[in-house]
């Protein structure tokens, strides 16, 4: 036991930001220590583009005409963010189930640090995912047509969606506290959510009520806004939801975050009951 600097007499707080960043670094270190897992994970959007763009895409047509892959890539942005719910949720579930959270909670650090650190790390991950989709899209012939400003705005909308999805994932992970169970919830949830959206097909091509559900789907709002901002084909739609896609692409993530972030924080605090 050396030096007095390590003796825990007076508390030395670093504040929630510094603590949160240390947690972020921790999560990024996880990513770096399991490169094979990460590679598999980042291959997901590439697979989406290839499978849906070439295998299924050959039989698909775009409402109002246009190249199907140009139509598809904005959907892949949204879908990739959606599947991030699984990684956010299972990471926090692993933490909550193992004792390491107990240690954090018994230390003189900001209580928020674990969750804000997780969220920041997931957003960084989201940026990497987004870049993977972007590169992959460019390789299969997709591009943006309405200038760099609108393109950047579109990418911000993608990250806004990721933020909401991250908090839903964190909440789920803390709720079930079992990484396998998280997967068991996220995938059955994500599949219909993407199927009944405008990711693969325009809502106009779906039967009546399904088309309406699809139009109001939070994913569809982001995807329509992306198609519009990128200048990709198939923006389509005639309902209120389609006409106000940009507004909804901001509102939906904001509302979902406003609901699920506090729920997650409450759930985290309740670990001590």
């Amino acid at each position, binding site marked *: *036991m050396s030096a007095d600097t390590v003796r*825990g007499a007076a*508390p*030395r707080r670093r504040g929630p930001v510094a603590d949160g960043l240390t947690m972020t670094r921790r999560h990024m270190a*996880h990513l770096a*220590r399991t490169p094979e897992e990460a590679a598999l994970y980042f291959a997901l959007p590439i697979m989406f583009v290839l499978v849906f763009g070439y295998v299924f895409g050959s039989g698909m047509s775009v409402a109002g005409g246009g190249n199907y892959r140009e139509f598809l890539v904005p959907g892949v942005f949204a879908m990739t963010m959606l599947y991030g719910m699984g990684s956010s949720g299972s990471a926090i579930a692993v933490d909550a189930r193992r004792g390491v959270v*107990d240690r954090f*909670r018994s230390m003189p650090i900001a209580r928020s640090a674990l969750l804000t650190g997780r969220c920041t790390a997931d957003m960084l991950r989201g940026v990497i995912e987004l870049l993977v989709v972007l590169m992959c899209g460019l390789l299969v012939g997709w591009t943006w047509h309405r200038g760099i400003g609108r393109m950047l705005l579109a990418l911000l909308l993608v990250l806004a969606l990721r933020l909401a999805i991250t908090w839903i994932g964190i909440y789920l992970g803390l709720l079930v506290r079992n990484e396998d169970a998280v997967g068991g919830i996220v995938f059955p949830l994500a599949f219909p959510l993407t199927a009944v959206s405008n990711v693969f097909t325009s809502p106009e091509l779906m039967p009546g009520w399904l088309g309406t559900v699809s139009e109001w789907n939070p994913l569809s709002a982001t995807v329509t806004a992306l198609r519009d901002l990128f200048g990709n084909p198939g923006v389509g739609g005639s309902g209120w939801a389609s006409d106000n896609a940009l507004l909804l692409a901001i509102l939906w993530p904001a509302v979902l975050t406003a609901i699920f972030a506090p729920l997650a924080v409450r759930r985290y605090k309740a670990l*001590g009951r």
Partner: protein
Amino acid sequence: MAADHAIAAEGLRKRYGDTGGRAALDGFGMTVPFGTVHGLLGPNGAGKTTAVRALATLLRYDAGHAEICGFDVARQPGEVRARIGLTGQYAAVDEQLSGRQNLVMFGTLYGLGRRRARQRADELLAQFGLTDAAGRGAGKYSGGMRRRLDLAASLVRVPRVLFLDEPTTGLDPRSRNQVWDAVRSLVATGTTVLLTTQYLEEADQLADRISVIDAGRVVAEGTADELKARLGGARVEVVVRDAADLPRVADLLARAAGPGGRPEVDRDARRASVPVADHVAALTEVVRALHDAGVTVEDIGTRRPTLDEAFLHLTGHRTQERTDAAGDGAVLAGKGRAA
């Protein structure tokens, strides 16, 4: 803030929400002076972990009052957390990070600064014999290594009060000794330790005072010697080849035990035993006397009461979780057999 005790708890009650049954803590209380080791001894399910988690601010208690270094656990959890360390029953380290990464992270969170945190990590890795495994993922460590890393993590910043919840359960003897050594050297620097254990021997080895806990309540408290005296202390036990020798052996045991020593004889087991004060001296004498008398002995040794017997003695009932208690008995009996 001046405080008389490192730990002071009174009337703690805790009932888990999802179990309508009995309380996990039912009027639990203890006081632990600064710089001492206090053992919390009890069988599985007695409430040890609940007590530790409540005192370490991890669990809200329903009623009662607790202070660590004079700070109210319920109202000043931040002050408490700044002064405690915790090594839980299950290793609380990040299994996806390496041993060194873990310690550096905890050091950083404690505000040591990057450079100092790295330095401290290396010191601790060396102290706990983990230097060679420093770069490996903690998830790939053996149980003993993980527990040592966990303890090291609690010592990144030397705490005023350290909680150790069954720190050696499931460890091999070498790892267990390392943990014990670490606890001793820590106490030498002035840290107060609350140690929970199912092993009488461990409490005996490390603790200045011991509280025996049963069903969420302290049923006995004292030094190890005081408790052992209450438990009936050690016995010398002889198993003979020929049951006909038993009366002679009983006489000889009575003499070795000194005045008031009343031997017990079990004819079916061909066994005679007697409680003794100084078990080493008594055993030596009995061995010599048996040899002089020419009695053929099948087994001889000293035996301490098992935790199970201790419980019967202290609480008047057997431990509630029979399967676990049987496990404890086996562990303790193994120790008792050695002469």
